[in-house]
């Protein structure tokens, strides 16, 4: 097997008295879709901020393409091919959709005209091509999520971190978005995603990590993780796994 594109090794982040991420570890294989799931407040978004250089870890190591990138600032990581979307969408509200995406395209393209052309190509890929001139502030939630995705894609990333791109979307919007994520992977982009929409996670991800109270408690393919008693207890409370098992036997 290839060397993993990303390896997070025992990473921790402390905010004063709160240990938000506690020796979390995960490995992302090149070309895969890997998901991080976990209850609210488990530290998933903090983990993403650590990987993408928005926060500096208090302990542990992050290795990307064989090089230690721990503590490297966000813009340099972006240049090396790590892109992210934000859970709370962060559009450049005063700019048009096309100009928003062009900022991403400018990472590797200096010329204004070619950057705008590249941005238009990416917009087509995510289905925003009919609203290029529209101000980003006027987009719907679904539109803004697509814009987040488009901007990140425009930087031509090797590794794309998606922070709940499906949250807040209705079922039909989710049905549109899932094949889009798959198509991005088909283009050779490795994906690490945080997601609460379980149906989508189960169908998209090859590998799932479960983060609870800042710690990775379980990992494996979707079916394995879903059957793990530790995971069931984390979501449904202590003893839940036993009760479920007992209930099944008692019937």
């Amino acid at each position, binding site marked *: 097997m290839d060397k993993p594109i990303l390896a997070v090794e025992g990473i921790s982040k402390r905010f004063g008295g709160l240990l938000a991420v506690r020796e979390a570890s995960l490995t992302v294989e090149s070309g895969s879709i890997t998901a991080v799931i976990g209850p609210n407040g488990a530290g998933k978004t903090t983990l993403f901020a650590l990987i*993408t250089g*928005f926060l500096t870890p208090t302990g542990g190591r992050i290795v990307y393409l064989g090089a230690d990138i721990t503590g490297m*600032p*966000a*813009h*340099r990581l*972006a*240049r090396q091919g790590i*892109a*992210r979307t*934000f859970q709370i969408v*962060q*559009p*450049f*509200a*005063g*700019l*048009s959709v096309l*100009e928003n995406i*062009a*900022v*991403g395209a*400018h*990472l590797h*393209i*200096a*010329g*204004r*005209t070619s*950057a705008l052309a590249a941005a238009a190509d990416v917009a087509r890929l995510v289905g925003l091509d009919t609203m290029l*001139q529209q101000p980003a502030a006027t987009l719907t939630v679904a539109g803004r999520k697509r814009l987040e995705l488009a*901007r*990140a894609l*425009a*930087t031509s990333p090797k590794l794309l971190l998606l922070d709940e791109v499906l949250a807040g979307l209705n079922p039909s919007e989710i049905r549109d978005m899932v094949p889009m994520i798959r198509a991005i992977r088909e283009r050779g982009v490795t994906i690490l995603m945080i997601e609460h929409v379980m149906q989508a996670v189960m169908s998209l991800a090859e590998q799932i990590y479960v983060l609870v109270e800042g710690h990775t408690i379980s990992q494996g393919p979707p079916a394995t993780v879903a059957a793990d008693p530790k995971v069931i207890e984390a979501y449904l409370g202590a003893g839940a796994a036993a009760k479920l098992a007992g209930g099944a036997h008692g019937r």
Partner: protein
Amino acid sequence: MSRSGFLPIAAVVAAMACIPFVTSSNVVLNFLVVALLLTLAGQGWNVLGGYGGQYSFGHAAFFGTGAYATAILQVRYGLNAWPAFALGIATGALVGAVIGTLTFRSGLRGSYFALVTLAFAEVLRIVASVAPITGAGVGTLIKLDVGARALQFQSRAAFYWMILALVAGALVITRLIEQSRFGAWLVAVRENEDAARALGVDATRVKLSAMTISAAMAAAAGCFYAQYFLFIDAGIAYGPWISIEALLAPIIGGVGTVFGPLLGALMVKVLGEAAKHVTGDVPGLDLVVYGVVLILVVAFAPRGVADVVARLRGLLKRPAKKAREAAHG
């Protein structure tokens, strides 16, 4: 698209260059020189504040440094006015880079950034009012030496063309920024710094570059002030008046647009003069007028007069054209 962006600049500058052929009134030319001086300082503020979203309250720091550097190099070191002018701009840019490094590296944003820039300008004003090299309280007087060699002109028209050329340069630089990758990054930082960083924008460096260019323009205005009036003291060079007027012009005219500062500077100066004429010379009344205008603009035309003009023109023309004008100011 990129070439046509410079046509309006050429047209406006050419039209303004003809004014001395129409009138030789010193009152009119003096008024225009002062308005263009303010345009230049305001364009400097606009690069950092309008495009970069970093609202400085202390552009006097750069204006004053340019003015003092030009004057001191000539008076105390006997340097020719031309290199002194160039060095004045460079010194102002350097002060901008230093203040920018200190503030942006410590992550100051918004009102904190504004207050710190104000503090820097005030510290420089106080230092200049006591330091021997600036002439302390007496100020610095540049020797009258009329001639192109000393960058001093008998006719107001020559000074007018000189400041017009500087403003033309600032307009072209602003347009170039607008159409470049650097400009896209700068606007991205203004709109959302975190999102910009995630897309590979080195926000600190972009802001620092903008501040250096911005300071250079404000310093050029200061250099010109020294050459034109041949006298500066701490209250003129580093006084809050220029910090205020440099931000009023673009805010009233239209922040983040190429012509906003020019439009705003003309309006501010017309209103200031009108107020003086109506009431006699009540000191400080022009400031009251500025305050009222600022409130009106912020309340009713937050994107400035340029935007209002564009929208009015749009009502008369086709809607598609309107959108393009709004986008390119």
